[in-house]
């Protein structure tokens, strides 16, 4: 072997020869969360997905100012208009945070640096919830600016017809949508399948459910107890009583928690290639 001329010998690539190696501290949760959060922003597609939250909020706000009748220039209209793109973007963000590890095969690196997959998945979940909350608050702030500007332009008094309770309902509704996206990501571990799955859940199933309810009286009675999407989107209208919460709990367990648990069980056992 000829003499090595590469910098290996001058940098500390191989410090290990010197002494007994120290015992390393386990990687803290905040580190994993920080890295996973960074991964949501540090690709072009990820960055624009995040940026789309703000962009769509601005577009929705502009649309309300331009097209809504003067009487509807109220904060509730702005919040409602902004909420619609959020219900689509946030679940996609949640799903992609999981599926990209498989679709882009980065899991090979991620799960060798942090072998505990449950910690990685938990970090991703906490990150997406955090991103979801911040996104909604940013969107509501954009809507507030729109409300002020819009009412000035229309020459109507600025109306703040939204309570804290209503905001919490919106957060809860979006939060469950986001969890649904996350669950589909964990379940399918494939970006395309998870996104299609979410659109089926958000667009196709409600139509079918409504058709069935219209045709079959027994289903119309049973629907609140079996249709999770119905219970989830109902949150945007608020006013839940004990019955509604119980229905949400029942359908949420069946359609959200059980699939999530099954998906996690498989993620922990599956082979990462």
């Amino acid at each position, binding site marked *: 072997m000829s003499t090595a001329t590469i910098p290996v010998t001058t*940098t500390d690539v*191989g410090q290990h020869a010197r002494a007994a190696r120290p015992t390393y501290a386990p*990687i803290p949760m905040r*580190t994993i969360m920080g890295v996973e959060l960074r991964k949501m922003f540090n690709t072009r597609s990820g960055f624009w997905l995040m940026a789309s939250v703000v962009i769509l909020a601005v577009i929705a706000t502009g649309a309300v100012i331009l097209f809504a009748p003067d009487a509807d220039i109220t904060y509730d209209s702005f919040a409602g208009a902004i909420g619609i793109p959020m219900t689509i973007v946030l679940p996609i963000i949640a799903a992609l945070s999981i599926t990209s590890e498989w679709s882009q095969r980065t899991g090979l690196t991620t799960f060798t640096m942090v072998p505990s997959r449950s910690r990685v998945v938990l970090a991703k979940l906490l990150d997406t919830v955090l991103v979801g909350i911040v996104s909604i608050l940013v969107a509501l702030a954009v809507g507030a600016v729109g409300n002020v500007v819009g009412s000035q332009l229309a020459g109507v008094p600025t109306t703040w017809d939204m309570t804290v309770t209503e905001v919490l309902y919106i957060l809860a509704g979006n939060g469950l949508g986001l969890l649904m996206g996350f669950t589909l990501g964990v379940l399918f571990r494939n970006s395309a399948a998870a996104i299609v799955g979410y659109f089926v859940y958000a667009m196709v199933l409600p139509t079918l459910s409504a058709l069935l309810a219209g045709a079959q009286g027994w289903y119309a009675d049973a629907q609140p107890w079996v249709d999770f999407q119905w219970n989830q989107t109902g949150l945007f209208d608020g006013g839940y009583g004990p019955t509604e919460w119980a229905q949400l709990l029942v359908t949420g367990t069946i359609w959200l928690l059980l699939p999530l648990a099954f998906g996690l069980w498989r993620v922990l056992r599956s082979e990462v290639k």
Partner: protein
Amino acid sequence: MITISHLTKTYGGFRAVDDVAFTAQPGRVTGFLGPNGAGKSTTMRIMVGLTPATTGEATILGRHFSELPNPGREVGVLLDASAQHAGRTGREILTLAQRTMRMPKSRVDEMLEVVSLTDEEAGRRVRDYSLGMRQRLGIAAALIGNPEVLILDEPANGLDPAGIRWMRDLLRGYADQGGTVLLSSHLLHEIEVIADDIVVIGQGRVVAQGTKHELLEAAGTYVRATDPARLAAALVAAGHPAEQSQQGLRTDASTDQVGEVALAAGIALRELRPADGAGLEEMFLALTSDTQREDTQGEAA
């Protein structure tokens, strides 16, 4: 140090890894050689906990990989240089590793220098990298935690001859400082150039292992003499069958034994040398033809 004992992985009825056992020693580069689909990658994925073993176990520094508190600080892993998000820059990928392992920020630039990626290249997205650049980036990511053990799957793939030489020197220097290196390849030549110890695997089973020296030694000797016929007769008489080849007489005897036989018979030699790797190459070729793709269904390489 990496210890693999009685490792088996089955997919349905197919044994991708069949009772594999070997040890990769500190201070040495261990080459893991086998044709495509022989079970190299599966074995390596089992080592780092990405694939569960059916039976048997793999330990690194005496522990299972999953028991390492911060694995990147003790084991550098490169399984597939292309398994990166194509939209991330090289620098960003190293930064993610540096942050996960809680290494100082300066480590990113140091490693870029070690693998000779320029600032401009590090700022490019990985989709615009050649395979050779991805391999360099992957090696930088593996080294970033200053680990004691390196596990590299086909790291020389896509490197040009100068790159392979660079990698040989890098891994040599690393092993000389006490590190353990395990690298796989499906090319005998690469392994021969880089490794000290060789483990040959085919159809999921270890078919040969030992130091490079032993495996090459076992390949026998080439010898030329002014009177080859007499030398051949003398060798046969001494119990060493010899056959004529393009490179002279080939025999399984060692160079020492051939020299003694020639001296005793009073035959002048023109050339006497070990048949470097010829036996290993023959064995490997036989293995490759036996285990070509038709036998590997069910194994996702």
